[in-house]
């Protein structure tokens, strides 16, 4: 197997007395979709925010491209080429698609914005992702459907030559056809060589696109396995009980001494 693109080793994180992550190892491989699954409160969101640089780590190392890197904030992470597409989308309704895709990283020509260049690049990115569902790149985001908004948010991440894209519940609020579009897009990203992390509650989605599955249980990694080696039922057991047959945490962490 190829070298991981992004890797966290031995990450611990506490909020006050709550020890949220215990010695978590997590790896993202190029060209693969890694699904991060776990019950509510298992630590998925915390782990994503640590990867995104929003939270610091108490202990643990952050590797990117095989080298250890220092990460002190979202800007450092963005500079590495890691983009997070959040569940609540983080798009501005009153701006159009182009404006949203370049938000915070506008291209300038002299003192003014370079709208021509930005619109051209936005179009190229959307068409390179075979996004054909938006009517105009100049329509406001408020007029888009949930799936289109998710598409724009993902395209925004791709626009910046990202190497790793984290998708937080991208299909949670979508209908069947829109989920289809987004999952196709997720697969296309991985086929282009990006490392994709899919955080999802939906086992159907996970088994459809994921190459690897990392299951969290009460802040610990219960399993990190290729998705073809496990069944639907095993993953559910890993999520709910932390173990399934030979897989999983040896000792129930709920009763273990911390």
């Amino acid at each position: 197997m190829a070298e991981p693109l992004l890797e966290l080793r031995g990450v611990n994180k506490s909020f006050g007395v709550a020890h949220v992550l215990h010695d978590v190892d997590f790896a993202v491989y190029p060209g693969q979709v890694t699904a991060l699954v776990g019950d509510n409160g298992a630590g998925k969101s915390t782990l994503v925010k640590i990867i995104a640089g929003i939270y610091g780590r108490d202990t643990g190392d952050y590797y990117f491209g095989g080298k250890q890197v220092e990460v002190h904030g979202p800007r450092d992470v963005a500079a590495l080429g890691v983009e997070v597409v959040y569940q609540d989308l983080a798009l501005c309704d009153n701006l159009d698609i182009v404006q949203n895709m370049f938000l915070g990283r506008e291209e300038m020509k002299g003192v003014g914005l370079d709208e021509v260049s930005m619109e051209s690049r936005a179009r190229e990115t959307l068409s390179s992702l075979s996004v054909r569902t938006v009517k105009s790149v100049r329509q406001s985001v408020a007029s888009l459907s949930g799936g289109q908004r998710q598409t724009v948010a993902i395209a925004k991440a791709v626009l910046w030559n990202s190497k790793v894209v984290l998708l937080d519940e991208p299909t949670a609020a979508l209908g069947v056809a829109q989920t289809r579009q987004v999952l196709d897009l997720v697969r296309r990203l991985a086929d282009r060589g990006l490392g994709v992390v899919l955080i999802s509650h939906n086992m159907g989605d996970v088994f459809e696109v994921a190459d690897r599955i990392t299951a969290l249980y009460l802040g610990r990694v219960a399993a990190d396995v290729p998705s073809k080696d496990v069944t639907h039922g095993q993953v559910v057991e890993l999520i709910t009980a932390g173990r399934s047959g030979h897989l999983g945490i040896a000792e129930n962490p709920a009763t273990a001494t911390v």
Partner: protein
Amino acid sequence: MTDGTDVQHDVTPSSTPSSGATAGFDSDNRHAATIGDSARDYLNRLRGGDMGSLPAILGLVFLFIVFASLNDRFLTTYNMANLVVQAGSIIVLAMGLVFVLLLGEIDLSAGVAGGASATIIALMLIDYDWTWWAATLAGIALGALIGLVIGSLVAFLGIPSFVVTLAFFLALQAVPLRLIGSGGSLRFNDPVLRGLSIKNVPVTASWVAAVVIVLAFAALSLWRYRSLSARGLVHKPLGLVLLQIAVLALIVLGLTALLSANRSPNPTFDISGVPWVAPVVVALLLFWTFVLTRTRFGRHLYAVGGNAEAARRAGINVRRIKIMAFVICSGMAAISGLLAASYTGKVSPGSGGGNELLYAVGAAVIGGTSLFGGRGRAIDAVVGGLVIATIPNGLGLLDQASYINFIVTGGVLLLAASVDAISRRRRSAAGV
């Protein structure tokens, strides 16, 4: 890209703008191809609740018809010039407020900040013999400082701007009262600053300026049309561009012609030319429109107003944007206070403490700026300011008791806020 990873990046958009622009993007059919399409688009937007300045323009037309039919002096060029001068300070204050309203905030202290700044300007002129521009800069600096403090309190402590600026509204009234003294007033007769309201641009110069503005707008619009259509990007149809140029030319040249005629009611002397207030307002309008629509700061301002959390995640310094908005608002309030003092010829302790602020908020909202943030333009302040200024002007000619004026203006403000709230609901339903 050169840090040694072996990832393929065919996602990278190639830098050939000609090829990729339309490739594989067939359903991008919103190039409104003709004026008819544009008109349909516009109607759809209206139906979806995106009214822009339309209610204000209709309101202005309505007020003009009513007042012109009730009083034959209303439409005289003398009164129209008066209206321009009266609207000046409201428009400038409203233009400053647009920045704060864009963030969904409010600045209740802008009126009295203008009064305090005007007091400082007058004192500098009278007591320290400063020249007009130095005194003006001192006044604007005071305004900006007030905005800096308000903005910092809002951005860092998270106090609602309503409360912070209400406190400043009360406290800042002390500045002119302390400096001028109860019952007194400072004369405001600097030839340049007072001249903003009582003197006019020479007729030749105003014609030159008007023609330059029209030609520059036409050249910019056509150049923009060419560069966008050549690259296959979204652009307005040529017919619409030409129509916009024609409308602008009609307004600018028409107003110049109107104000260049002799409007003196007394045949023994001549009053003609555009009042100096107008070029000041136009310059501010052009400058702030550029800032809002063509600069990074403007884009970020809209983003913070639309979704502050999204803006923060995009790496925008939300606090800096907020503070800047309040600095601009209070700085513009200082200019507005200067124009108000220039109009009345004096600064008194009550300057800026009256209806100025609510008029300006009303002007911005009537013009189409949303109280909920994220929507608004500098031109809104101009259109709305003219509506607000027309009401007391017309009612004054009708010799109505001044209480009527309060009722009508309050009613118009409420109406504008209702239109804003209703169109916001329709927008969220229609998703425009």
